[in-house]
């Protein structure tokens, strides 16, 4: 790596005029360009001179600059690195300096170029192989290979019987529901009482508000009284009526509020 007087690799006038040479679109990055240059230098990549190669690359970049061709940053990064490497290669090694030596850096670059070339070669060998759908073929018409997931639902007689008894037991409670049925809902009483507002002015007994059909059975009557009482309280709260009970357990009377209407 000390061939300082090696013939410099420079772009000739003709090459400079040939746009192909500087058409960096054709290169896949600086390493690719270096590889192309190395190939023009030597057939065997293991014999290339990194110093020479660096000079060629730097010449190329300079030429590009001269032609005001904008180079991508990575080409400039490589140029910077090669300029650095070149100076290191030309100077006697500095024993105090840490890190890899200039020769090691040069050897690594040579390795990178060889590796890239090897991968290029491998890629073209790979693509030259017989390929599926081009040189050999899969079955043109495939048949259904079914994936069937069978879920077996299980239930035994016990499940069936407990289920039915569960349902029937629920049903058994239905009469109980109806036993609770004759309950006059507060909402119902309230609605009814609202309808009566404006139709009476004097004090009236709460019992007189219980609908006819709720009076016969004591149970129903009690329920209706309770609902009406609750409804009355609601109307008092709303300011529609006044409520009065003169003595404990005495009759409860309702009168329309004076300001009603």
């Amino acid at each position: 790596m000390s061939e300082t007087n090696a013939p410099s690799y420079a772009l000739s006038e003709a090459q400079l005029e040939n746009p192909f040479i500087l058409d960096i679109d054709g290169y896949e990055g600086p390493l690719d360009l270096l590889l192309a240059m190395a190939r023009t230098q030597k057939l065997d990549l293991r014999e290339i001179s990194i110093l020479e190669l660096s000079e060629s690359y730097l010449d190329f970049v300079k030429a590009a600059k001269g032609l005001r061709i904008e180079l991508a940053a990575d080409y400039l990064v490589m140029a910077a690195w090669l300029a650095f490497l070149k100076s290191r290669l030309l100077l006697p090694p500095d024993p105090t300096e840490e890190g890899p030596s200039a020769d090691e850096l040069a050897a690594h670059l040579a390795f990178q170029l060889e590796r890239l070339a090897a991968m290029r070669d491998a890629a073209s060998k790979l693509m030259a192989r017989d390929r599926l759908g081009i040189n050999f073929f899969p079955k043109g018409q495939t048949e259904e290979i079914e994936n069937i997931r069978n879920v077996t639902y299980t239930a035994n007689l016990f499940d069936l019987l407990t289920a039915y008894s569960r349902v029937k037991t629920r049903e058994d409670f239905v009469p109980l529901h109806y036993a609770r049925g004759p309950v006059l809902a507060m909402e119902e009483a309230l609605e009814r009482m609202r309808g009566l507002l404006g139709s009476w002015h004097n004090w009236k007994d709460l019992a007189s508000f219980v609908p006819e059909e709720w009076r016969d059975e004591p149970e129903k009557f009690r329920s209706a009284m309770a609902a009406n009482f609750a409804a009355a309280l609601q109307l008092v709260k709303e300011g529609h009526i006044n409520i009065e009970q003169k003595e404990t357990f005495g009759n409860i009377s309702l009168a329309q509020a004076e300001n009603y209407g």
Partner: protein
Amino acid sequence: MDERDLDQIERAVEAILFASAEPLSQRELERRLPEGAPVKAALEALTDRYEMRGVNVRKMADTYAFRTSSDMELYLRNETNAERKLSRAAIETLAIIAYHQPTTRGEIEEIRGVAVSKGTLDQLLSLEWIRLGKRRETPGRPITFLTTTHFLDHFGLTSAKDLPGIKELREAGLLERSPLDSADDEGQNEENEFDNLATEFDDELIDESDV
């Protein structure tokens, strides 16, 4: 005819039929092969060669294709089995149908107190535990459901009449097992439960009166 020639054409026909997306006629095969190639003989040889194999050369009208042998069908289906417990809705629906058959969806809903989803009935139908009966001659002409022989087999019953009655269920302790009934011996819990029921029912009534 050259023996080696036939062999090569047979291999070519084999490859072409294999790779083709559709069955090919003898004429189409001939078009792809060197002129004068013994395609007919190759097809015959190929048909013989594959006769006892897992795939056969099948002739359909005047076209040929490879098809898996019919006795191989079972291997082309990948079945995985999983067991799952029938859902509560499904087993209850089934039980109601079993006890009340022929019964309608409306009746099932009345007894269960909740809507019966189509999925539940579909599932029971696909299990072949229930089947569709006649329509009932009532308004809407609802379809009725019945249990099947398959149902009897599965549950080990001789006939639907063999199903134990409510009295027997109670005697067998099955009714007592119901969560709603389990409070018989615990007064306090019972009351609470009843209260809840009453409240539910109340809500229901209000809803109805709103309508």
